[in-house]
């Protein structure tokens, strides 16, 4: 029999954490700092709205773009919170999470042979999606000395005649780094000079701790050449609902809508109803969760520094990103031994890109008590090295 798996599907790498996943599954009493999602349940009013809509028989397809009320609520929210304006009629597509939004964005703009610059360390799905669209991902490293921001010179160095787009994610998974207006201005010059498109995944926007989130498109030059991705998973603890959105200028959005229409039809209606409730009446719950993440970040990062794992104070997301360089262990060896010897699961940085080697991603979206226990165990582990 032939090998039916397509070359492209064979080529994309498997998840870099499969091994850890299997190890954790078989162990008892593990504290996992490896989870990239909120530990809170979705606020109840959001669940209730969805339950009620199901009871009312609201179980059919919606328009491909998404319910018009939701599109209006999202564009109003983006204006209120981040001062960015999109048309609810022509510049938005509601998707099944940012994962779908990213895939659609890439397929909307990437032709076979195109290069797409991916700012690393980054979420692991970006490069495989580029490859599945026939493009070539080109990593550019964000360095610790730059606060894990994308350096404009490094970006310029990676551009070739084949470069079509640049993918960024701030606040960043896994570093917690954020970009401010000046940083966006600097990369905007490169992007405009080389006539590139920016794909900005801002899913952690609400989880910004000092000051408020800066959206890429607040820099005027980027407005007409950016696809903004965001969603509800992190801010409203709605990961399992799979609901996000893509915003872009009309021409790009029209093309994205076609792809979304053929692959997804529409985002699940109950998740759309839940999202409307999230935007209308859940800012208090959202802000309370963000404040709790901030408390945990402070205690955990200070704790890491105190026990001898140097860690910068991340400005966003819910990840601490300590360096293990001084321990003499690689990030991979450190993570494996920490799990098997002390029962604390973290993710070795190398999974997220070359510049993340020597670091660990520790999600502090776990209870304060568990963070304290994790710190104690890491301290014991360090003492035994």
């Amino acid at each position, binding site marked *: 029999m032939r090998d039916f798996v397509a070359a492209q599907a064979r080529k994309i790498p498997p998840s870099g954490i499969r091994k850890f996943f299997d190890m954790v599954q078989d162990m008892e009493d593990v504290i996992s700092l490896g989870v990239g999602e909120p*530990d809170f349940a979705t606020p109840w009013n959001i669940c209730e709205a969805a339950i009620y809509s199901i009871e009312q028989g609201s179980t059919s397809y919606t328009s491909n773009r998404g319910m018009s009320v939701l599109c209006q609520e999202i564009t109003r929210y983006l204006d209120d919170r981040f001062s960015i304006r999109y048309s609810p009629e022509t510049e938005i597509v509601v998707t099944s999470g940012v994962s779908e939004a990213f895939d659609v964005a890439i397929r909307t703009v990437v032709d076979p042979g195109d290069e797409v610059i991916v700012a690393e360390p980054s979420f692991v799905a970006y490069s495989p999606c580029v490859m599945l669209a026939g493009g070539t991902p080109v990593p550019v490293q964000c360095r610790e000395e730059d606060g894990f921001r994308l350096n404009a010179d490094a970006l310029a160095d990676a551009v070739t005649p084949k470069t079509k787009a640049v993918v960024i994610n701030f606040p960043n998974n896994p570093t917690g780094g954020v970009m401010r207006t000046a940083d966006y201005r600097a990369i905007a010059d490169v992007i405009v000079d080389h006539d590139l498109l920016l794909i900005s995944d801002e899913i952690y926007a609400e989880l910004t701790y000092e000051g408020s989130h800066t959206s890429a498109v607040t820099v005027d030059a980027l407005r007409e050449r950016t696809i903004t991705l965001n969603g509800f998973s992190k801010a409203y603890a709605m990961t399992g609902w799979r609901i996000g959105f893509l915003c872009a200028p009309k021409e790009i959005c029209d093309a994205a809508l076609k792809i979304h229409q053929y692959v997804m039809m529409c985002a699940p209606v109950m998740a759309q109803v839940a999202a409307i409730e999230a935007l209308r009446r859940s800012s208090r719950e959202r802000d309370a969760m963000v404040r709790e993440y901030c408390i945990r970040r*402070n205690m955990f990062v200070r*704790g890491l520094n105190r026990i001898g794992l140097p860690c910068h104070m991340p400005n966003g997301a819910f990840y601490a990103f300590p360096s293990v360089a001084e321990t003499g262990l690689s990030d991979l060896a450190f993570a494996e031994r920490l799990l098997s010897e002390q029962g604390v699961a973290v993710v070795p940085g190398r999974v997220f890109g070359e510049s993340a080697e020597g670091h660990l991603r520790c999600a502090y979206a776990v209870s304060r008590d568990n963070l304290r226990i994790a710190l104690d165990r890491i301290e014991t582990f360090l003492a035994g090295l």
Partner: protein
Amino acid sequence: MTMDDKDRLLLTILEDDSRTPIADLADMADLSEEEAAARIGILEEQGVIRKYRAVVDWEKAGEPEVAAIIDLKVNPERDFGYDKIAERIGRFSQVRSLRLISGVYDLQLLLVGRNIHEITSFVAEQIAPMDHIRETATILIMKTYKENGHTFFEREGGERLPISL
């Protein structure tokens, strides 16, 4: 009075656990211990922090309590409105909380006693005969499901994946 994010972090932490050690408070608000203590001192002086108290389960302590909500219709007084009568009612130690409310009734209070008899006789003998009180409605509390933001029922949380990216 100037409040910043650090102050609000301290308040959030103390509201949940007012006995959080100062070293932990400093960590959680990313402050030095001295600054955390100084800020808390100012918040106390300003009355932002009104009081530190324990949440006691008196039933477990062998002194079960009965509680009731009492709604009152009140004739307001010239120059004082509801304030004077409210102050008068608020002095009773049995009155756990007291609020001016909108709607059919004017004042609502939460009353606690050792048994139903204590509650009903308190309403009948102390509250109802007061000047300006036109009507009372006594609503006994039969079971508490949630108090001060804490639910008294356990719900099974969904299983999170042990690791996800």
